[in-house]
């Protein structure tokens, strides 16, 4: 007897990308020399990458950094022949737009960038390359909600004129409300919060990360700076100064957040690759406890082991589902991807499109 084996890999997806439009950076050598003389930690690639994301990708224009320049899927016209990078203060002078033949690596990057962009338009994002679409509340206590977001992460497998997407279901536990509201609850008053929440991962709210292209992962909680602390004003002023530089839209958003919650604590977080701590307004952050700290956290707010155990069981069942449940989620993601491809000008599918199915022989006893 024969049976089907199925794996959540989607394909084949065909692409047609015979040409790209490329703006070279005229002053590339000059910038390189200047960065070398300044002994800057950054290089030209990092700057091009940042400008590409900020000026084009965040505005929905498909662009990738390519060989001391920026490449586009479609012909674009720029108002000015230069781009300014605020962080480094460097201006990139653009040369004449050229038509070029894309390499495999360019195609891979463009398709990845296109899919992430389209998925991001319809998802909640809590970490890099992860896209969350659905949520399940597994516990509610007073104003505190313990949710699990469900979504996907994808990898691509490239072939000459087609590719496959490996879909991997992802789960993100999340505690609501935002940190400013959470910390105002009696359970988290004063110093207790630092002891019990230290080291817990924090994410920025998806409204902030998606709208302004900011990082979804904030870092791990190190310290809570309450309004009555000496350093509070200094940190707050630095935060305001930072957003002033980042542009009008984000500054207005932050202003609104501060007015909504005027005395909100500031959170000091640490990240593995940053030697210096970072500071965030607590209204921008939510707790996203990892599996290893979730039981301690729940026990702290609930107080009884029995209820905690029941919640953990429910949590465990969601994050390690049975096969049919796993596949039902994967099928939903497949539909979203299908829609994105159907609305794209350079991707297409054929009748074989779907999950990869393989035949196997089985002898039942």
């Amino acid at each position, binding site marked *: 007897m024969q*049976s*089907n*084996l*199925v*794996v*959540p*890999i989607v394909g084949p997806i065909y692409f047609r990308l015979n040409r790209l439009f490329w703006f070279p950076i005229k002053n590339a050598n000059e910038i390189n020399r200047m960065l070398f003389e300044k002994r800057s930690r950054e290089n030209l690639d990092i700057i091009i990458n940042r400008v590409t994301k900020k000026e084009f990708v965040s505005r929905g224009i498909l662009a990738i950094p390519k060989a001391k320049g920026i490449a586009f899927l479609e012909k674009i016209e720029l108002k000015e022949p230069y781009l300014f990078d605020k962080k480094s203060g460097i201006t990139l002078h653009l040369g004449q737009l050229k038509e070029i033949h894309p390499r495999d690596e360019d195609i891979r990057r463009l398709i990845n960038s296109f899919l992430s962009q389209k998925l991001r338009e319809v998802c909640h994002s809590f970490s890099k390359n992860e896209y969350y679409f659905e949520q399940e509340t597994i516990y509610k206590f007073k104003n505190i909600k313990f949710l699990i977001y469900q979504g996907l*992460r994808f*990898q691509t*497998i*490239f*072939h000459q004129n087609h590719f*496959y997407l*490996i*879909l*991997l*279901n992802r789960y993100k536990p999340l505690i609501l409300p935002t940190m400013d509201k959470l910390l105002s609850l009696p359970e988290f008053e004063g110093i207790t919060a630092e002891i019990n929440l230290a*080291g817990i991962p924090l994410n920025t709210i998806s409204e902030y990360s998606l709208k302004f292209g900011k990082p979804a992962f904030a870092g791990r909680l190190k310290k809570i700076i309450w309004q009555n602390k000496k350093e509070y004003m200094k940190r707050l002023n630095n935060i305001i100064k930072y957003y002033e530089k980042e542009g009008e839209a984000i500054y207005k958003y932050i202003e609104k957040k501060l007015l909504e919650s005027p005395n909100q604590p500031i959170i000091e977080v640490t990240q593995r690759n940053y030697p210096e701590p970072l500071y965030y307004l607590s209204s921008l952050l939510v707790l996203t406890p990892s599996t*290893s*700290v979730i039981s*301690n956290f729940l026990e702290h707010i609930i107080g009884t082991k029995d209820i905690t155990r029941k919640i953990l069981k429910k949590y465990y069942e969601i994050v*390690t*589902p*049975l*096969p*049919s449940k*796993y*596949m039902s989620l*994967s099928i939903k993601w497949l539909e979203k991807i299908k829609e994105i491809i159907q609305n794209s000008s350079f991707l297409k599918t054929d009748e074989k499109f779907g999950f*990869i*199915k*393989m*035949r*196997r022989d089985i002898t*039942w*006893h």
Partner: protein
Amino acid sequence: MALKEFELKWIEPPTLKFAKGKKSKFPLEGLKNHGPFDLESRPFKKLKVFIVSPNFAKKYLDKFLQIAEKLADEMLKIKLEVVDILCLEKFQYRNVANYLNEVDKKLENINKDELNVVLQILGARSTKREDNPYFELRKRMLGREGIAVQSITVSNLSGKRLKAKIGNVLLGMYAKSGGKPWQLAEPVSSLYEKTIYLGYDISLIEGARRVGTTIVYDNKGQLIYSTPIDIPVVGEIIKSSHIKSYIRHALIDITKNGNEIDTVVVHRDGEIHNEEIIGINSAVKEFNNKTKTIIISIPKTGVPPLFIQFEDNKYGLADNGYYFFTGYKNKQPTFFLQTYGFEPLKFLSQEEYKKHSMETRVVNMLQYRVAKLSNNLLQEMKEDISSLYHDIARQIFFLSRLNWGSGFGKARTPVTIHYAHKASKLLTSGINPRNIRWDKLWMI
């Protein structure tokens, strides 16, 4: 012959070898029916254990030990002897210096040469690095006394599946004492008899990096070498000169112990950089120009599980041993292998198979890449390269069946990587297992 994408192939799970060469497909069945592989040759007659426990866990200990003694006799055919029990109050656990002092005091009256393992019972699991009794007791026992530590939390001393949990603890303690519960009945590679499998991993210590323990198995599935090694690393990359000298030393040590080598298979936990490939290749070439090399990288990025689709559109988890080629990444052929899926314990009917596989929680497949095949190997296998890839899948699958820390005997990755990863994680907490014999799997 070129590789065909998504062409499903299957490897039959290996048979395992127990006492007196008796065989079984399943570790627990084999142990119960025949006893451990080293029943007649093991260097210890009793499994002597010293227990450190919180006072409040005392009420569970009697029942735990009762079951453990029975299981030790049934599974490992050995007498479990509790040398002494040290019970401490909760506050003594919180002060690690005090905790270690109490352990030292108690150990003064114990003949440490005869002690096999320390069983540490913990109030709760904690991942913090500082002042954590889990890491601190290991630092002390492995660094000073050369004795391995097995830990279990109080919540695991009672409740559901107690026998299974105790079984796993016993297996862990047995392997940490230098025991060998089972071996493979068939060779790991069916193509090359004198193959060795070397796994290594890198872990981070506050900005600097080091390499964890190297674990080496032979083609019979026996651990033949293990050592913790520090290597300076720049970012994620190990310099080729450093990896070269370290691989050369390992190969020389292995041959000094009387092992012959015709093929070296290197398993790298995570992505492998070109610098490392160059270093490994030149170390093997310098060691012996005729030796063949296979370098496998096992990326950390997850891949989905493999399912079986039933006629009513329900899904179950496919059983172990299936693998397929998915394509190339960085010009390296990439494969997915179901190592840790559903395993039918007996021959099942279609209905039973469906029920069990649908009720099994999903486990992702293993992804691996063949990063490099040496020229001499390619030359030799050029007519039949798919047999070589099949043999590589078999090697990885078979080596994943030597996890002595679990009653099912399975790990998701080959044990070379599985143990190297565990060891390197422990090494980052400052543990230095300098006094323990290399064949005691202290990291399991």
